[in-house]
C-alpha cells in the first residue's frame, strides 16, 4: 500500500535545466526503497520532493490520509552544534508544541532505541561521526514518522562505521520496536542499495531508468552470487546511460565528467595491471569506491577513447595502452589530441582562444556559456575539469589572478 505517491513529477530550476521528468513513484508501506543514480541524476531532488522540501514544477505528490509525517536524515547530519544531544532530539517535539515532560520521555525512548544512552548531555562536536548520525536518526525517529527519508546517510562516515550503523539500522527495521512504516534512502553506493533495499529505483537524467526488486533474504551476504548478479545488472544499467548520450557533440549536450587527469591515469594504470580487462564491480570494491567516485572516471576515460565499456566490463583500448606506455611529452600530446577530438568543451575553449586576438579570454565567458545548460556548481566544475585537461595537454592554462584562460604556444 502506497504511503507517498508521485504522479508525473517534474522539476526544473531557474534557467531551462530540468532535473526530474515525469517521475511516477510509490513509497509503499513495509518496504525499504533505494534511489540510485550518478551525481546530477536527480535522486536527491526526488527525495526532497517526497519530503515536501522541494515544490515540484509539475505533477503532484500525495500522502496517504494527507497527514502523513515524514522524518529526514541528512548526509552531514544537520545537527545544531549549540544544542546537546537531547535538545537536538527534542527539537522536533518542541515544534509540535508538546509539553516538557512528554518531550523528555519520548526523547529518552528514541535515544535508548538508537543506542545513545549516556550521551544525552554531550554536544555534537564531542561525538564521532557515527554517533552524530545516530543523533540524526534519533531526531527523525522520535517524531514516529510514517516514512523515514534518508539522504546518503552513511556516505560521510568511514567504511567500518558505516557498515556497523547500516547493520544496526536494518536489525532495528526488522524488529517490532521500530516506529516507522517505510524507509527510502538515496545512495550512490550500489552495494549499499542492494544490501538494504527491497526495491531499487535507478534514476538517469531525471527519469526512472530501471526499477527492480531485491528478493534476497536478510541478512544479506555480499559474496552471494545472486547479490553480485544484481550489482552487475545495476552497473550495466548505469553505464548504458553513458553510451546513450554519446552521439551529440556540443559542450551543452555532452558535459565533461568531473575527472582529473591524475584520476584517469590511475584508472588506466590499474586497468593495465589487471591485464587490460576487469569488471567495474570488483574494481569499485577493490578501491572501496562508490558510483559517484568511479563512474565519472570511467565516463571520462571512455569519452576520450582510452577504455571501452561492455556491460559491466571495462577494457583498455589501443589508445589507452599507448598513453600508459608513452613518456611524458608523448603522453601529453596523445591526451591533447584525444581531448580536442572528443571533449567538446576542451575543443571549444582551444578554438576560441586561438581565434581571439590576444590568446586570452575571461573565464566568465565560458562560464556564461555553461550556465545556459547547467546549474552554477556544475558549470564551475566542468570548467575546472577542462582547465585541468587543457593544462596537462599543454593546450591552454588559467591565470587565476586575472581570471583568464590563456592559450599555450
Amino acid at each position, binding site marked *: 500500500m502506497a504511503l507517498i505517491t508521485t504522479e508525473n513529477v517534474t522539476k526544473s530550476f*531557474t534557467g531551462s535545466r530540468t532535473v526530474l521528468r515525469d517521475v511516477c513513484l510509490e513509497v509503499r508501506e513495509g518496504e525499504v526503497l533505494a534511489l540510485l543514480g550518478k551525481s546530477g541524476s536527480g535522486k536527491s531532488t526526488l527525495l*526532497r520532493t517526497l*519530503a515536501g*522540501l522541494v515544490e515540484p514544477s509539475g505533477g503532484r505528490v500525495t500522502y496517504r490520509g494527507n497527514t502523513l509525517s*515524514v*522524518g*529526514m536524515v*541528512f*548526509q*552531514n*547530519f*544537520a545537527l*545544531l*552544534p*549549540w*544544542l546537546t544531544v537531547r535538545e537536538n532530539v527534542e*527539537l*522536533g517535539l*518542541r*515544534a*509540535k*508544541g508538546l509539553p*516538557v515532560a512528554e518531550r523528555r520521555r519520548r526523547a529518552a525512548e528514541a535515544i535508548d532505541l538508537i543506542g545513545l544512552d549516556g550521551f544525552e548531555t554531550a*554536544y*555534537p*562536536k564531542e561525538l564521532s561521526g557515527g554517533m*552524530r548520525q545516530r543523533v540524526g536518526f534519533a*531526531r527523525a525517529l522520535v*517524531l514516529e514518522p510514517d516514512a523515514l527519508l534518508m539522504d546518503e546517510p552513511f556516505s560521510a562516515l568511514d567504511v567500518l562505521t558505516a557498515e556497523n550503523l547500516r547493520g544496526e539500522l536494518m536489525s532495528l527495521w526488522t524488529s517490532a520496536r521500530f516506529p516507522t512504516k517505510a524507509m527510502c534512502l538515496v545512495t550512490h553506493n550500489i552495494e549499499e542499495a542492494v544490501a538494504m533495499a527491497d526495491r531499487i529505483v535507478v534514476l538517469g537524467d531525471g527519469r526512472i531508468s530501471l526499477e527492480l526488486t531485491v528478493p534476497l533474504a536478510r541478512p544479506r551476504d555480499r559474496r552471494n552470487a545472486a547479490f553480485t548478479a544484481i550489482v552487475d545488472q545495476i552497473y550495466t544499467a548505469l553505464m548504458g546511460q553513458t553510451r546513450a548520450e554519446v552521439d551529440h557533440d556540443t559542450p551543452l549536450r555532452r558535459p565533461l565528467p568531473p575527472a582529473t587527469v591524475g584520476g584517469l591515469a590511475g584508472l588506466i594504470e590499474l586497468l593495465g595491471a589487471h591485464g587490460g580487462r576487469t569488471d567495474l564491480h570488483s574494481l569499485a570494491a577493490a578501491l572501496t569506491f562508490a558510483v559517484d567516485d568511479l563512474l565519472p572516471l570511467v565516463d571520462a576515460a571512455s569519452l576520450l577513447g582510452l577504455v571501452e565499456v561492455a556491460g559491466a566490463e571495462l577494457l583498455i583500448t589501443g589508445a589507452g595502452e599507448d598513453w600508459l606506455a608513452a613518456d611524458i611529452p608523448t603522453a601529453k600530446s596523445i591526451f591533447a589530441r584525444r581531448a580536442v577530438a572528443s571533449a567538446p568543451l576542451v575543443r571549444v575553449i582551444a578554438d576560441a582562444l586561438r581565434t581571439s586576438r590576444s590568446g586570452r579570454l575571461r573565464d566568465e565567458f565560458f562560464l556564461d556559456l555553461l550556465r545556459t545548460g547547467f546549474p552554477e556548481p556544475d558549470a564551475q566544475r566542468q570548467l575546472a575539469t577542462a582547465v585541468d585537461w587543457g593544462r596537462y595537454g599543454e593546450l591552454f592554462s588559467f591565470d*587565476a*589572478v586575472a581570471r583568464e584562460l590563456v592559450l599555450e604556444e
Partner: protein
Amino acid sequence: MLVDIAVAVGVCVLLWSVVRVGSGTLAPLPVETAVELDPAALPGYAGRSLLRMFAALALSLLFSLVVGGLAAKSRRAEKIIIPVLDILQSVPVLAYLSVTVTAFIALFPGSTLGLEAASVFAIFTSQAWNLTFAFYQSLVTQSAELDEAARALRLTRWQRFRELDVPGSMIPLVWNGTMSFGGGWFFLVQSEAISVLNQKFALPGIGSYVAAASAAERTDLLLLAIGAMVIMVVAVNVLFWRPLTAWAERFRLEQSEAAHAPRSMVLDLLRRSRLPGLAGRALRPMGEGIDRAARVFGRTGARRALASRERSTLLTVLTVVGLWLIADYVSATTGWPEVLHTISLGLITLSRVLVVVLASALVWVPIGVWIGMNPRVSRLAQPVVQVLASFPANFLFPFAAALFLVWHVGLGWGGILLMSLGAQWYVLFNVIAGASAIPSDLREAATNLRLKRWQRWRFLVLPAIFPAFVTGALTAAGGAWNASIVAEVITYGSARMEAPGLGAYITNATELGDMPRVFVGVVVMSAFVVGVNRLFWRRLHRLSEHYALQ
C-alpha cells in the same frame, strides 16, 4: 548599476528632506549647556555616556536582526536593503551628525531628549550597518542542510530564529559588535558636545566634560577624563566583550573545537558560580511561554522567496525625479560653483587620507608583522592594541591642539597627525592578526629554502598579510574621512586653528547653520568615499582574495 545609482540618489533625497525639515523648524532652544567641571561629577557623566553606548548597541542589534533578516529572506527586500547599507556604511557619520541633531531637536522641541536621541543615533549609525551585514551574510551562507532540517522538523518561525538563525550568526555578530562598539566611542564623544547654528549644545557625559575642560584650558581635568575613559574602555572589554566572545565559541559551526579558543576569566568565574544556572531555570517557563505565543507567526518556510521582476521604469523615473529635486535645491541655494569648490576641497582632504593610510602602512606593517610572528609578544600586545583602537582619538585633540599652538605647527600637517591618531590602529590590529595566522609550516619552508630576508618578505610575509592589510587600510581610510571633520578645525580655549579641506568646510557650515552648504559638503564627501571605495578598495579587496590563506 541602475539600482546603485537609484539608491545613491535616494539617500541624498532623504538627507535633503531631513535638512529641509530640520532648518524649517529650528529655533533657538532652551537647552541646558552647563557641564560641571567638578571631578566628582565625572563618574556620573561617564555612566551616562556608557548608557548611551549600550542603548545604541541594543538599537543596532534590533535593527540588524530585523533588517538583516528581511534582506536574507526576501529577494525584493534584499535588492533595496543591501545597496542602501553599502552606501550608508561609506558615508562618514560625523558629516551628517549636525543634520540629524537638528532633525532630532525639531522632533523633541524644548527638551534634551532630542539631543539624547541624536547622540544615540550617531553611535547607532556607526554600528548598525556593520551588524546588519554580519547577520545578513551569515544567514545567506547558512548551510542548506540546516535550513532543510529546520523545515523538515517543521519548526515555527520563532523557533527557527531562536535555535538556528541567531545562534548561527552569534560569532560574526559578537565580533562585529566588539569592533563597532570600539569605534562608537569616537562618535559618542563627538555627539555629546556639538555646535549647530551658532549654538553650543551639550549633553552631560564624558565627551561634553572633555569639551568643557578644553574650553576652560584645564589640562589637569583633561588628563583625568582620559584616565576615566581608559578605565571605561578596558572595563567594558574585560567585563562585557571578552566574556561574550568566549561564550560565543559554543556557537562555532565547525564540528570540531577551535585550537585557540578565546578565554575569559570573568566568564570562567560566572560559569563556576551557580547563579547563571538558577537564573536559567527560573527563566525557562518564560521561554516556553514565548515559544507557545510565537506559534501565531506560523512555521518556517523556504529560505528565499522567488526572485521578483525588477521594476526598472519606475526606478528610473524615481531616480530622475530625485536628481532633479537635488539639482533644483543646489542651484537655488548654493549654486554650482560652490559644488566645484567643495570638490577641490575634497581632493585636499583625500590627499590627507592617503597620507594617513600610507604612513600607517610604512610604520605599522613591519611592527605588526614582528608582533604577529612572536606569539608571546602578540598575546601581550593584542589587548593593548584593541584598547588603543577603541580609545576615542578625539579625546586627545585638545591636547594636540595645545601642543600645536605651543610649537607653531600648522593644522595642514597637524591635521594629518590628528586623523591618523585614531585611524592607524586598524592597520596595526589587522596586520598583527594576519601575521599571526601565517602557518608555521610555511615559515619553516621559507627557512628551509634559505630565503634571504627580502625574499622572505616578498614571497611569504607580504602576500600572506595582504588580505588583512587591505581590510585594515580600508577601515583606517574610513576612520580618517570621519576624523577629517573634526581634525581640520580645532579649538583650544579661545584659540582656533583651521586647515583647508572638506572636513573644515562641513564643520564651518554646521556652526553657521548654513544647511545648504552642509548638504552639499556631506553629499560631496560621501561621493568621494563611495567613489574611492568602488574604484580602488573594491578592486584591491578582490585581488586580496586571491592571497587568502585558505
